């Protein structure tokens, strides 16, 4: 207290009201405004890029949900078509084929579109008619007007691109009102094909779904448990350091190397499961797990020790402390890591190249062990297709992937917001 006397010598002008302070304050406020503007700019920039990307994707991709069709009235009178009563749609379609349905359709098309036009009917168009008949056999009596897909080349020409030869025909048929773009519901229910007019995204979507399920079921629990172990129980020793380093390192390993691992380990163990979602999921899980562990550990670290003390002091065991208190409080942070990791896994192609998922799979998979491909792989394959019709389809597939991503993230974000707590 003796030093107190020495410092009360100067007059009572507090330094926080001096002109120097005020001048400095101006600068500080300028810095504050700059800083805030920088932050806003950063967010704004990112959002702008996002909007640009989404905008161009949607702009390019919306057309991919449509296809070019001819409106052709078909009558089946006197053709003697009978519809087989069976659950097996394939058999029923074959029965109609053998009764000459394709010829009936092309005849009807010729009548409406002329010979040149009829040549541009997609060779599989009659199947649409067949499906309509099987769905409602009374069509055979009534006849009807069907929207028949065109050939891929005609479709491109109709859009004013591709080979010049078909464009006059397209203009002409358009003038007659026979051709139009129609929403292609089948795009969402079919699988891969070689004709852009006939492809669908469903197969890849289901493949991605199965793959992500496997990834999530493996990576999330393993990641969370490993994070808990490392953060809460692991003794601080060399062994823990090894685990920690290898987890951090796995997050840095290029994804293709996980593909090599999947090839060398999983496919050696399960040789019959090449191209199957379960192997893809396992491989991606190895890649996703470190991300979940790392973000999970940060989230767990952020739970204040006083919460643990409180629980321990009422006699909770370390396991109870962790599962009753730490884990629920850390969950939002863990979910952030999960979102990021799963988003990456959903968009990943490189490791899947090596375990057989860059494949032409024309029927949607029905289980975890069926042959399958995934959305990004489908996008990648389509983006390199020769025919022009695939350009729009690729963009449409990207939109589907994004919607899938949004749904997945939406769920996680919902959960994250629900569990977010302050202390």
């Amino acid at each position: 207290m003796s030093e107190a006397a020495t410092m009360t010598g100067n007059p009572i002008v507090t330094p926080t009201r001096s002109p120097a302070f005020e001048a400095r304050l101006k600068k500080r406020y300028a810095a504050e405004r700059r800083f805030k503007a920088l932050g806003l700019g950063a967010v704004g920039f990112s959002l702008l890029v996002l909007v640009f990307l989404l905008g161009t994707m949607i702009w390019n991709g919306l057309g991919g949900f449509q296809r070019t069709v001819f409106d052709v009235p078909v009558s089946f009178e006197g053709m003697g078509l009978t519809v087989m009563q069976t659950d097996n749609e394939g058999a029923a379609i074959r029965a109609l084929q053998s009764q000459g349905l394709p010829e009936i359709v092309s005849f009807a098309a010729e009548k409406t579109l002329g010979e040149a036009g009829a040549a541009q009917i997609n060779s599989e168009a009659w199947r649409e008619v067949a499906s309509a008949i099987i769905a409602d056999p009374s069509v055979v009596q009534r006849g009807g007007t069907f929207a028949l897909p065109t050939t891929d080349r005609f479709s491109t020409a109709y859009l004013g691109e591709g080979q010049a030869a078909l464009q006059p025909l397209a203009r002409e048929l358009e003038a007659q009102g026979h051709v139009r773009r129609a929403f292609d519901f089948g795009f969402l229910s079919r699988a891969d094909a070689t004709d852009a007019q006939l492809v669908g995204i469903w197969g890849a979507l289901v493949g991605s779904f199965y793959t992500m399920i496997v990834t999530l079921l493996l990576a999330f629990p393993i990641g969370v448990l490993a994070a808990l172990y490392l953060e809460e129980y692991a003794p601080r020793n060399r062994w823990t350091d090894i685990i920690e380093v290898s987890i951090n390192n796995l997050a840095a390993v290029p994804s293709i190397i996980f593909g090599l691992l999947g090839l060398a380990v999983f496919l050696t163990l399960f040789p019959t499961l090449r191209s199957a979602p379960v192997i893809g999921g396992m491989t991606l899980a190895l890649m996703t797990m470190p991300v979940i562990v790392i973000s999970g550990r940060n989230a767990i670290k952020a739970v204040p020790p006083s919460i643990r003390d409180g629980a321990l002091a009422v006699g909770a065991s370390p396991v109870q402390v962790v599962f009753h208190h730490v884990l629920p409080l850390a969950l939002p942070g863990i979910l952030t890591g999960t979102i990021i990791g799963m988003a990456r896994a959903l968009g990943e192609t490189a490791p899947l190249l090596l375990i057989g998922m860059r494949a032409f799979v024309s029927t949607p998979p029905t289980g975890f062990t069926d042959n399958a491909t995934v959305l990004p792989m489908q996008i990648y394959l389509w983006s390199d297709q020769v025919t022009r019709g695939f350009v729009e389809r690729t963009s449409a597939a990207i939109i589907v992937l994004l919607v899938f991503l949004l749904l997945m993230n939406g769920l996680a974000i919902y959960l994250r917001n629900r569990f977010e707590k302050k202390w």
Partner: protein
Amino acid sequence: ACGSGGGSTSNLAVRAVGSSTVYPFATVVSELFSRNHPDLPAPLIESTGTGGGIALFCAGDGAQTPSIANASRRMKVSEFETCQANGVTDIIEVQIGMDGVVMAAAKNGITLNLTPEMVYRALAANPYGQPQTARNWNDVDPSLPALPILVYGPPTTSGTRDSFNELILMAGCDTNADMKALKDSDEDRHKQVCTEVRSDGAYVDQGEQDNLIVQKIESNPNAVGVFGYSYMEENLDRVRGVPMGGVEPTYDNIASFAYPGARAMFIYVKKSHIDAIPGLREFLATWAESWGRGGPLAQIGLVVNPDDVMARSNSAITELRTLTAADFQ
């Protein structure tokens, strides 16, 4: 509990792996096959690259190994030997057709009249063993425009690049007598001098993304692209072929070898699988039905085999003639 060994839940099906160049044709054949044989399981076509495909193919003779390897080049002796060593002894080689390698520019872009020699001198890392100095096309040949050399092409790892090396660069290189002589004295050196491409930006590796090359040359009128013929055919409204030695890269010119840029594509089939894998025989038959002139494969850019090769391919399928080491001489 389901089975040992081959007990996957699906039935045995044809499985074809390999080249991404063959992949689009194989998928079309697979689709045709499924349409014509709805009761047989659909073939699985996988794009792994030729090397990866042959490695899988040669891994063994079991029912889980692929029955077919798609290749955009011929099997190498070393690969054949691996096959033999792994018990894959009876291999049928079928040439399904040819892939054209073309050079093209934007429709309203640069006009070039090239020869393989000019291409070689413009793109080689060390033309004829000398340092590369050309920056503009007219540095290579005064008849060419004074525009910077900019070529987008496939990476060394792709089959298209391999054909480009072999059919255009090598040909251009061998116009020089010293190089021809070098070929006999030091084959490796010759190959390097003749096929190594400059990496200073004049030649841009564009991954295996032919559509992107098309887009890039479309937006850059001074650029030239190297890609498969089918891509040019599909994009004729945007790009224009670069004549080579005065010959335009048209279908007929490629099929007749007048345009120096066509090379064979193969499928390799395990004879032992023909009876064991349901549908394999029919699948091969579908190939044969599709690869002809005017067939569905030609429509998507396959350059059809010359008649004699066609006959040989047909007989390979019907007679199931297998490869021997002698075939590689």
